Every structure is written in C-alpha cells, then in structure tokens.
C-alpha cells in the first residue's frame, strides 16, 4: 500500500467532496479515511488514500488535483504521507 494525504482547504460550497471523490475513483485511488473540520472559518478536509493502483504518474495526479481545486475554488494538495509521519511521529 502506498498512502498519500489529500487536503482540501477553502470556502465551503456544494459538491466539494463529490467532485474530489469522483476524481479519486476515476483514477483508482482508494479512500481509507476522511476527516473534516472548520479551521478559522474555512472548510478543511483531509483524506488518507491509497495510490498503489494508480496508472498515471504520481506527479501527474498531484498536478491534476491542483487544477481540480482551482475549478472548484478550493486548494487541493496531494502529498506523500511520509512528510507528516516524519514530522509528527518518532
């Protein structure tokens, strides 16, 4: 399993989760966990996903997610999990 963290940050609007999940499903990315909160008045969602079945290059997925975010009007990042693991876990 190759885990990544997808974060979505921005103003709340209809269909954010739907659009993101559709993109993930289209690209064979499995969602393992979703959590959502409001931080400083902003919609803030984090998904832990498994990208081991993707057919595109991981960097292409990262770029496409950024573009998708721009379309919806939110900021989407897709990052490998290790950066968070390293920083917050011994």
């Amino acid at each position, binding site marked *: 399993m190759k885990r990544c*963290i997808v*974060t979505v*940050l921005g103003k709340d609007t209809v269909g954010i989760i739907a659009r993101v999940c559709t993109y993930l499903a289209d690209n064979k990315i499995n969602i393992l*966990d979703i*959590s*959502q*909160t409001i*931080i400083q008045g902003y919609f*803030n*969602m*984090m998904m*832990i996903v498994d990208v081991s079945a993707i057919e595109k290059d*991981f*960097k292409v997925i*990262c*770029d496409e997610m950024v573009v998708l975010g721009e379309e919806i009007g939110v900021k989407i*990042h*897709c*990052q*490998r*999990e*290790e*950066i*968070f*693991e*390293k*920083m*917050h*876990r011994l």
Partner: protein
Amino acid sequence: MINIYEVSETNQMIEHENLDVRTITLGISLLDCVDSNLDELNRKIYEKITTVAKNLVSTGQDIEKEFGIPIVNKRISVTPIALVGASACKKPEDYVTIARTLDKAAKEVGVNFIGGYSALVSKSMTTSDENLIRSIPQALAETERICSSVNVGSTRTGINMDAVRLCGEIVKATAEATADKDSLGCAKLVVFCNAPDDNPFMAGAFLGVTEADAVINVGVSGPGVVKKALEQVRGKGFEELCETIKKTAFKVTRVGQLVAGEASKRLGIPFGIIDLSLAPTPAVGDSVAEILEEIGLERVGAPGTTAALAMLNDQVKKGGVMASSYVGGLSGAFIPVSEDQGMIDAVTVGSLSLEKLEAMTCVCSVGLDMIAIPGKTSASTISGIIADEMAIGMVNQKTTAVRLIPVIGKDVGETAEFGGLLGYAPIIPVNEFGCEAFISRQGRIPAPIHSFKN
C-alpha cells in the same frame, strides 16, 4: 494514524511560515580529474560534473512535488580547485579557465551555485594556492555561479596572516572588478577559520578531501516557523521558550532528513549530513532577527542580543540533532545582514553595529556575513576585520567566516542592492583607525593553547 490537525500544522508551516529545505547540495570529488594538461583537466571536470549531477535538479523537483515541500536551491560543491588545478595551472589566468568550466557545467545541469573555487591555507600557501587566490577577482567577475572560499586559519594550526593580508587585498580587488554591480563578486567570496568539509551552504561550500566520491548534503531552514511558534509562548519562562524552539527545530529537521534520504536513494549517491541551520531570506517572516525580537529584544543589536542568540543557537542544535542520523556542516543560526529583513532594519535604525555583529558571531554560526561596508575601506582594514573574526574561531574552536562587501563608490547612508536571495544592505560604518603595521607583519599567529581556559 496522522490526524487532520497535524496535517494542517505542517501545511501551515509550508504555506504561511516559509518552511522549506534550503538546499540539496551534491558534493563531487574532482580529485580523479587531475591532469597536467590544462585543456584535458577542464574537459574532465566538465564531463564529471555534468555526468554525476545530470539528474540533480529534476530529482529535487520530483521530491518537491511529491511531498509538497519547496526545495529552494539545488547546488554543487567540488573539491577545492587549488588542489585539482595544482599540476596544470602555472599562473592565476590558468585557474580562471577552470572557473569558466565550472560555471558552464553549473549552467548545463541547472544549479544556481557551484562552490569549491577554494584554497585551504590555514598554515601556509603553496604556489598553486596563491595562484588560485590571486585569480579570484577575475574568476568572480567573469562568471555568474561560482562561489569561492579560502580557509586561512584553524584551532590546530593558528592563523596564516600572510593569507589574511592577501585576502584583504583580494576582497578589495573583487569589489573593484565587480563595481558595476555594487561589488556583487564579494557576496560569493568567504574567508574561513575552521572550515568544515561537508558544508552544503553557499558561498562557503566545498567538498573536503576526507569525503567520498559523491555525497548528498542537505541544509534545512525555517526561521519563520520558529518565530510563529514563539508567538504562542510570549511572556513565558525560559524553560517553555527553549522547549518550543527545540520541538520546532526537531520538526523542521525531520523534513530535511526525509528529503535527504529520498534524494540519496533516487540519485544513488550516499547521504552525508544535514546542516541544522536557521537560514534567513529577505522575505518578510523568514528572519532570524525577528526571532530574537520575538524573544524580547526591541531591536537586534540591543543589550541581550548575544545571550538570546546563544540560547537560540543551542536549542536549535539540541532539537535538530535527534531528528537526523548525521549532523554536520555549519549547523546553527545564520546572521547574514543583507539576507535578513530584520537585520537590515536594525542596521538602518542604528541598533546594529559591526562590533555587535562580531560579538554575536562568538555564539552562533558562522561569522560576519553579507555586510556592506564603505568602498573606501582599505585592504589592510579588511584584513584586520578578517583577522579578528579568525581569532574568534581559532580560540573558541568553532567555524567563523567573513563575507564583507566593500561597495565601491558608496558610503555610509547608502544602500547596496544584490538582488534575489542575496538581498540588499545599508552600508555599515567601519572603525576608521588603521592596523596597517599589524597586518604587514609576515608569518602566522601560532595555534592557541588548549588549557588554562579563562
């Protein structure tokens, strides 16, 4: 499993507090390029660098994208060129051809700086060392990406005062050779005492002869992250203050360790060290001076500055050391004047003087860094400032360095513009009493005694 607050803390650091990996520096040994034929030597150097470093920039960009962490610079350090060119270079102009080759190779592989146009002369100089040092003004004026350094002293050998005298002249000559660009050449020339072999930061990077054929060294940064964390502990005691710095330094360094490991794996080149340094940039919110002010100083340079900096430097190391498997380089807090908005402001309002900066260098890495001084300053005065800073390093068994920019045609009250990461600097006054007779003495200052420490 990672939770949403941890993820947003990390991303907050990256997006709003300027967390980044400052540099991945690929050290390349050029010892196997040595040849007595100058053309052949240049050909071998170009070939080796463009082969070993071919994928450096693209690998750095891949890691940046996959982990979502900016890697600001990809750079190269090489074996001190005075060693590599000793057999082929008979005069300073011969060394300049190597400088052009290095510059061309740096452009070919896309790195923004290449360090190692250097000579190690802490005890005395060979003819080739001296030729290289004498070639520095022309080399820096004719190239764009070369960084040069000279190690003129160490705790074990004392200070080579002949080299100190020569370096004062060379700094002045470099300033004159690049006078049309506010003496920018001097921003790429460092004079060291106790220079480390594995420093990834420019302008003083070179690959020491004790290192492997190729090695990845990484410099982390993050003054903005420390500043932000300290805002949460305003008015609290030193214990909490220190804990906060340590925890933050740990987190920042872990990112560096991750990037270093990935780069090493992907390039198939061994990982050397992480340099734990708080490296400021001219961007607002990326300043070491602002951290010191957050700790409680009205302005950097005020009484208390040296103590606050000593504490900051020590806590950064304590937090960072556990986060990395190997720590080296310069590790500490950098205080370059032109590259730190808080430092620039402190000089402008008259809070920070050259003398106070010198005192600060006793407790932090590295030295008198990126300080613009009047262009009329004499070579012997520059040598005097270098000698003072070298003495601090020699006696305290630490690395110290001098990167002064005598801005030709400008004086106190004016500003020098270097552009980009090098920033800008108000010209700082220099003590105008001379030291000519001291500097013109021949020979070296003996190594200090290591007992009777008072």
